Every structure is written in C-alpha cells, then in structure tokens.
C-alpha cells in the first residue's frame, strides 16, 4: 500500500535524523542514567528486597515529563523553521502520512531507549523471582505513556517554529495531565465544582491509568485512554497544520 510506504519513508528519515547527530546518544545515555539513578538511588530498589520493578516504573511519568517533550519538540517546529514543511507537503503524500510517520519514528526512538533498560529486568531476575508478567505490563504501560506525552509534544511543536517554546508548552500540558488526579489539583475543584466534574478531571489524569499497568492489570479502558490521547493529539496536530497552510 502506497500510504504505508510513504509513512515508512518519512519515519525512516525522521529516525535517521535522531542518529545523524550525537543528540540521540546523549539522550539515550542520559535517559538510562536517570532511570538507574531514580530506581536505585532514590527508589532504593535493592534495599527494599522486593523482586519487582514497581519502583523502577514509579518514576517513569516524572522522567518522561522532561525527556519525551525533548524528543518531540523538533518534530514540526524544525520543519517550519527550515521551511521544509513546504517541501514535504507538496510531495504526493497526505499530511496524515507525514504526521503519523513522524510520530511513529519518535515513538520507536523512545521504545529503543526503553528497551535498553533491560539490565533492570536481568537484575531483579538474578536477585529474586519477580512476576515477569507484571514487568511486561509495566513496560507496555510505560510505552503507552511515552506515546501519549509524545503525541502532546507533537501537537505543541506544530504550534510554533521555536523548539524551546514547544518544549515548555508540552511540559506544562503533560504536567497537567499527570497532576489532574492528585489531591492538590482535585481540591481546587471540590470546593466549587460538582462532583462529576471533579471526577471527570481526575479521570483525565494519566497516573491512575499508568498505575494499573504498573500493578500488572491490563485493562482495555486504560489502553483506550492512552490511545485516545494519542489519537486526539495527532488529529489536532493535523488541524493546526491545515490552518497554518490556509493562513489563518
């Protein structure tokens, strides 16, 4: 199918773009270092004498808050800054193929970084007998969470040609999604808002959905939650790009 071939071509270029400069390697090293630091030094994984990666996954929503927008910030803002967007969108492809191709490439890059945390699995398996099903679930959840953050970064990078602005806006939005379920945020609403609104806001939080995966629960609703954030963000990216082109 031609559209899939186009998506692949774009994804391939984007992925190669990460590795064309040392940025990709710096990113991966930093990612792994921070993962290790939080898991072992702050999460005290070893001292807890638990054969699980709960404290490894525990930090992912927070680490991704900075690392994922850093990966996604250039996706469209760079195209706009260089003017290559004009080149790309006058090729015989649809804007959708470009959006999906770019998103998949960055997601694959994050997946690679995530896969490289495998020594954590080896460590707990060596030291004890963890439930590897739960660990697998945690990885699935972590991957979906990264995808959701990434789709939001993709959206914000289409809004501006400045990568820094794109980064900051996407960190803020991701932070809102993360904090929405926590008491300090819900308390802001409980005093005046009806109960259903408080619960709706709390339900939008990525944290409880991620926690299910972390506990080893594969719930279809959690899957749908993350996929709809991705779908909605990419759709909005498409709308923004269409508006940019018509000059509104």
């Amino acid at each position, binding site marked *: 199918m*031609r559209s899939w*071939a*186009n998506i692949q*071509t*774009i994804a391939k*270029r984007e992925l*190669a*773009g990460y590795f*064309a*400069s040392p940025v990709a390697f710096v990113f991966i090293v930093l990612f792994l270092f921070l993962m290790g630091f939080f898991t072992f030094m702050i999460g005290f994984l070893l001292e807890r004498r638990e054969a699980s990666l709960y404290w490894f996954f525990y930090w992912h929503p927070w680490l991704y808050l900075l690392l994922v927008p850093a990966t996604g910030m250039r996706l469209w803002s760079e195209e706009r800054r*260089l*003017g*290559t967007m*004009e*080149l790309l*969108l*006058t*090729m*015989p*492809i*649809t804007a959708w193929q470009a959006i999906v191709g770019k998103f998949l490439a960055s997601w694959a890059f994050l997946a690679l970084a995530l896969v490289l945390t495998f020594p954590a699995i080896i460590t707990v398996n060596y030291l004890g007998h963890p439930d590897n099903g739960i660990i697998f679930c945690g990885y699935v959840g972590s991957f979906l969470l990264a995808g959701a953050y990434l789709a939001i970064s993709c959206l914000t990078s289409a809004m501006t040609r400045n990568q820094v602005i794109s980064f900051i806006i996407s960190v803020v939005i991701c932070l809102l999604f993360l904090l929405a379920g926590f008491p300090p945020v819900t308390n802001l609403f409980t005093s005046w808002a009806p109960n259903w609104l408080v619960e709706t806001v709390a339900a939008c939080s990525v944290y409880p959905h991620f926690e299910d995966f972390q506990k080893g629960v594969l719930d279809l609703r959690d899957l749908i939650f993350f996929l709809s954030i991705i779908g909605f963000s990419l759709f909005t990216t498409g709308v923004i790009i269409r508006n940019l*082109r*018509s*000059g509104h």
Partner: protein
Amino acid sequence: MIRVENLIKTFGPKRAVDGVSFAVERGEVLGFLGPNGAGKSTSMRMITGFIPPTSGTVFVGGFDMIENPLPAKRLIGYLPENAPAYADMTVSGFLGFVAELRGLRGEDKKKAVHRAVEMCFLEGVLHQSIDTLSKGYRHRTCFAQSIIHDPEILVLDEPTDGLDPNQKFEVRNLIRRMGEKKAIIFSTHILEEVEAVCSRAIIIDRGKIVANGTPQELKARSDFAGAVSLRVLGINSDIVKAKLGQIPNARKAAIVKEDSTCVWARVYPQGSSKNGELARNVGEVSAKEGWKMEELHTEEGRLDEVFRTITLPDTAKEGAQ
C-alpha cells in the same frame, strides 16, 4: 498542463492574490515577474498545493489540485523559495528520501538520484551534510530534488537566487533545455533571465496580472521600442536635435548626452513605424548633412523600463496615500 482560473487568496484583510488566471502548456517556459510581495510565491504555493486558495481553481494535468491533490502533485516538481532542505541529511540521503516519496524504489531510485546529481553538478558534495554546503550547492540540491522524478511540470520559485554568474548560466540553460518537453513556471527578479529563458512572461503586481505576453511583446510596450540611437562625432548637439526632429516619421528627437567630442542622440518613432525605416531615415539625414556617424542602432525596447512603468505608478500612489 497547468490551468489557473480566477485564483484568489486573502490573508486577513489583505488580498495577496486577486483573480489570477492563466494557462501553461507543454513546451512553454513561463516567467513570473513582479515586485516583492506582489503575490508570486503565494500563487506558486497554491499551484503546487501547499496552501489552499480562498477561491478559484487550479488544474494540473487535468486534475483539480484541491479536489484531487495526490495525482496532481505527482506531476509537479517544485523548488520552493529559499530552497529549503533537511540540514542534517547528506545530499544523497536527501535526494534518496525525495525519490522514495515520489514512489521510486531500488534501481529506479538509484538511477533517478544519479541523473539529478549529474544534471545539477552535485557529484562533489554527494556525501556532505547539507548544512555544510555553500548557498549555491544547497540551492542546486533543492533544485535536483525538484527534477528527480523527471516531472512533466516544474514550478521554480527564484531558481537562480543566490547563485554565482556561472551557476546562473548553467541553471538557465537547464531550464531552457527542459522547457522544450515540459511545462515550466518560474519566478525571478532578474529581467535578463526572462529574455534569456522564457517563451512567455507574466507581470504580477499587488495580486493582479498586469501584463502577459512574449518577452518581445512586452518589450514592444516600452517607450524605447523602435527608437533609433546614434552617436555623432564633432558637431553641435542643437543642430543634431533640430535636423533629427525634422524627420517625417519621428515623434521627437532627444539628446541623451554629449561630451567634448561626441553627441549621443535618440529619435522616437511616430506611431508604429516599420522596423528599420526610422533608422534608414536617420542614415539619410546623416549622409546629407555629412555627419561623422560612429554608431546607429534601433532599440528593441527594455524590459526593465516596461516593468517599472507597469508596476511603479501604482506603488507610488499607494505610498502617497
């Protein structure tokens, strides 16, 4: 191949393109002229499907660019303004990427890249990263991208911008050669380029087409067209002016300049005098008077002057408001 009908684009309150219509057939090279901000790039962006028009239609090879963009886009090769390219890629990587988006794979892709590289003289920088290239090379890389699938239609936004004179010459030759088999639209600020390359030119000003014709036709609109210029040695300029003014089919005679030895004069024709007739008359006057004529030629008219008279008065008016 390209048919544009009543194209309009408004940005907020501003009409960037205001009712542009024209057609370009295979074998034609259409020059798109106009002052900065006249709407040239906006028109080209609508033709190539980058931005949708506010109203009007663009047909490319029979396909409607708005209703059916993919087959229309397949026919076009496009060089956008400022020749954008992915800075982190090598020249060969970039061209390969574009070839793939154009649906070329394997051996076809290799051949296409090779052909474009050869035509644009990029062999020397093939494995260099684009952000290390000089402006001329970067421009040619983007140009190579536009011809990689040997398109039937080429849309080039200032293809010679930023090139040195030799490169300009090469690119013009390339455009002229390709124009024999393709339909080409290109925009430029350089008027000699229009004469050297175009089979037809359109002058656009503040979103509207103000002139459309062959370079010769446009030049004929010049005040100079058909005028006879001459240089005479060692004679008083008043006498020259008086004698030339008496030629029956001369509208007026003027002294262009004079120095201690020579007089430069120009005679403007009355109405549309036949080519060469005025020059013959001037020659006869000169022979009768025994002038030492050093130079005599009929002016073809000058495109830059036509361009200025068409586009300047309106701009000046707007400035006065």
